[in-house]
């Protein structure tokens, strides 16, 4: 059993990782077939992972209700909402005109809209209180933020077309340069972590640290 818990996943990750890596350099039909086959497997596996995610969510909330932890009422709402949505979806499908469609348009959409509309008010209040130029770096950030904020809407263009041009320059140059650094850093980290997983150095994906 120890083999299936520890060594087997590492061997599997190594075999699959190396196969997909080598496949990239093999211009043969078998390589394409392999790729397409693995893609179909992956869709099935991801489907299963969604089922596990649902079970995990239910397990978490059922435990909260069973132990009556503070705020367990919210967990009850989650469970009831989940079960009724699941049943209605299975019985009537999820298309417009069905009960699930009704719940989507008349419960889910207004609730999300309300939440995000409220956010605009909080952001306004928070920006007024917290967006202060206490250092030179904060001042640079403040000026850039204000110019982009006003330059990206029609009133900025109405005040001066240069405002809009300058906002565009900020987006296309300093912003892009910074983000390009972030993107490259993330890509290199992804390569590094992939190599570590393929060679069994990184094992946290199996759970419980290494």
């Amino acid at each position, binding site marked *: 059993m120890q083999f299936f818990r520890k060594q087997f996943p590492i061997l599997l990750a190594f075999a699959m990782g190396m196969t997909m890596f080598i496949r990239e350099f093999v211009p043969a039909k078998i390589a394409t077939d392999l790729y397409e086959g693995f893609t179909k497997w992956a869709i099935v596996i991801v489907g299963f992972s969604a089922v596990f995610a649902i079970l995990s969510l239910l397990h978490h909330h059922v435990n909260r209700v069973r132990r009556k932890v503070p705020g367990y009422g919210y967990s009850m709402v989650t469970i009831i909402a989940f079960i009724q949505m699941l049943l209605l979806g299975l019985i009537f499908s999820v298309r417009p005109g069905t009960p699930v469609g009704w719940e989507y348009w008349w419960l889910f959409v207004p609730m999300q809209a309300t939440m995000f509309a409220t956010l605009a008010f909080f952001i306004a209040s928070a920006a007024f209180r917290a967006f202060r130029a206490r250092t030179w770096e904060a001042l640079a950030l403040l000026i850039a933020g204000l110019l982009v904020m006003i330059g990206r809407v*029609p009133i900025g263009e109405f005040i001066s077309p240069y405002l809009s041009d300058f906002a565009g320059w900020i987006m296309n140059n300093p912003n892009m340069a910074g983000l390009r650094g972030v993107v490259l850093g993330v890509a290199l980290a992804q390569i590094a972590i992939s190599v570590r997983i393929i060679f069994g150095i990184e094992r946290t994906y199996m759970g419980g640290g290494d």
Partner: protein
Amino acid sequence: MENEAKRNFLELFLLLDRRIIYTLVALAVAIPLIWPIGLPIRITPEVQSVFDKIENLPEGSNIMMSADFDPASQPELYPMMKAVMRHIARKKHKLAITVLWPNGPNLVAQCIEEVKEEYPNWRSGDDFVFLGYQVGGTIVIIGVGNSFVETFPKDYYGNATSTMPVIKNFNRLGQADYMIMFEAGNSGDWWIVYGTEVHDVEVGGGVTAVVAPQYYPYLQAKQLNGIIGGLKGAAEYEMLMEHPDMAVAAMDSQSMVHALLFVAIVLANIFAFALAIQKRNAARREK
């Protein structure tokens, strides 16, 4: 005494009750909606590129669309999706639509219905296929790179995709002449990495204002041919279509809220600075 009163005013302003700010924001949103100002909307090159690409493709070209957002981003992305979908229907291009977010398909279905009211001859199966949602993210993108039919055996409405006329010449991402993706998160990165770059498909992005900055590196690297950014981008597209709609109507409100925030932040900083100087002078006098 005068200094005391001034300091009190500065402090009072900086401690402004949040309910007053909320009221001002509400007024800045509501008043221009009731009495529109009609501020001019200038077309940016990023939006023009997307429009030109769809406009200049020969009639009947294949266009892939991915609507990766949910109701939280609906105010920004729905108007631009509708404007682009309307453009595609007007140009009689073939369209395949996928959704990578589970709460997105109903929005697309609603948008299709609204466009169909304007273009009654625009038919599912003949002119477009709405593939719907499939769990998997990047895996779905790889899947549609291989085959729409195998990844989505049935469309959103439950019809078999394999028998649809639109699928005959448009069954995988590589057969698309252009792709447009509407993104509220980072699924756009996945489309570029696993989809459009692999299959050499030109792509444009319709994104929320919050995530727009993260897509600019792709624009300069020409991995995106254009960006429709936020509600303003949607308004620009509606203007290009000469069909002002929801986004154009909301532009004045957005402008007023941005102007209000601009003034509030600038005043708060000036007052905070003045208060700090007053406090420093007072401390010196006490010494």
